[in-house]
């Protein structure tokens, strides 16, 4: 299964890539929404894990662009966010196939979410 990780913090990219690769997934990384959009086309992931606040293009714009391009919910998206950003939640819930995960980040939870996506994929 192919997973794309998008975050502007190198530490987050590093830890998620390591965790997901150890779990046997094929991982590519992007540092902003625009790069992620390009990699969705090139790499063709089944799951995307993204941050919200990023330079160039943020997570919200990324998700909305993917939705507009008809990529959702076939591409499952996990948006990682801070609990305080309540306003952010509304738009996340309005999009199909998009799930929220609260910070501080737990790589284990991200791995389990990706694994659950893999299961649903097999079931379909």
């Amino acid at each position, binding site marked *: 299964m192919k997973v794309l990780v998008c975050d*502007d*913090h*190198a*530490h*987050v990219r590093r*830890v*998620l890539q*390591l*965790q997901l690769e*150890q779990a046997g997934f094929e991982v590519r990384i992007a*540092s902003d929404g625009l790069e992620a959009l390009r990699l969705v086309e090139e790499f063709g992931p089944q799951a995307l894990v993204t941050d919200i*606040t990023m*330079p*160039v293009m943020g997570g919200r714009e990324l998700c909305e662009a993917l939705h507009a391009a008809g990529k959702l919910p076939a591409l499952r998206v996990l948006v990682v966010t*801070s609990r*305080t*950003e309540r306003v952010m939640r509304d738009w996340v819930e309005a999009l199909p196939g998009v799930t929220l995960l609260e*910070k*501080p*980040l*737990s*790589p*284990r939870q991200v791995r389990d979410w990706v694994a659950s996506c893999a299961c649903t994929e097999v079931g379909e």
Partner: protein
Amino acid sequence: MSWTASIRHRLRRPDAGAPAPATIPSAAPPDARLEALLAARQVQRFEIARWRAVFERGAEPAVLLNRADAVLAANRAARALGAHGEEAPVHVPLDEWLRRAAVPPQPIQRREPLADAQGLELGTLCVFGEPVTEGPSEAAIGEFLSHISHELKSPLNTIRSYSEMLMDGSIDDPETRKEFFNVINEESCRLAKLIENLLDLSKLDSGSLALQRARLRPDALLGELVRAAEPQARARDIVLDAKLAANLPTVFADKDLVAVAISNLLSNAIKYTPAGGRVSVRARGEADALVIEVEDTGIGIPAAEQAHIFEKFYRGASAEVRKQAGTGLGLALAQQIVGLHGGQLTLVSQPGRGTTFRLQFPAGAREQREAFGLPEAM
């Protein structure tokens, strides 16, 4: 009883609410009569001072008017409306007094006629509504808190995720384990620095951080700060040098805060300069000023970002900036500190070539010391 009502009440009945002036028995010996008179006078003075204080310190702007509606006195809140500064003129008609106010007062809330003990009308106490103080809006506070929590959660996020992987035994390679421990350590330091900067900034914002000014020798401080930054520069393969002019002017400044400002600039210069580059600290005296420059051969700051560089939490958008740990508070703090000293912090930058930050502090320690009436120190 409101304070206006109590003033009115007090004027009608001079003995109310106060120790009664001693009655002076006419049969008393002259010495005793004089003593009693002095005591009564003392009580009266005390009373006047007390009611003046009540009038003066009221939160609402208030003026005393004579029978012709001319202003006899204005309290502190009324003077703060900017009509006449501390030297409020007397016998100006109220209408004109209001026209001259820089800040239009709230509508008149109460007019209390004032009369003396015999019921003779003296004038009017005129009280305006309490001025609306413009603090930050709820929305601005909410936005700021959300921003702070986001900034605090970022290093916390890294600490949690890296430690979780170590705890789960997911990392077998000893080199990777070492890397993970290093990241946790660095991010804990960043979190501590962030909290420290945030506290300093909030103290500066609220004005509760009083400057501890003393005579400051810039060469000694700069030497100290350059030495402290050397390990960071060496680790990043950057040459750090200092060129200090002889006979630098002494400034009258808060050493700890100035050190925070300069070390923030130094640490930024080192952080945003690629390996093999150079960071130079220069200091010289200019007409009535001490000028300190921190120059680097780093990545530079695009013109569009220069306008925002001193804003709290602002960080450059480029990948080169983002890959460095930063709080986005260092420059905001430095600028506030320099500003508090009556100085200026400016920059000249060319992307790809480097940046020079220029600090300018008013110099001439003797003049400053005299101006502040402060003792010599250091």
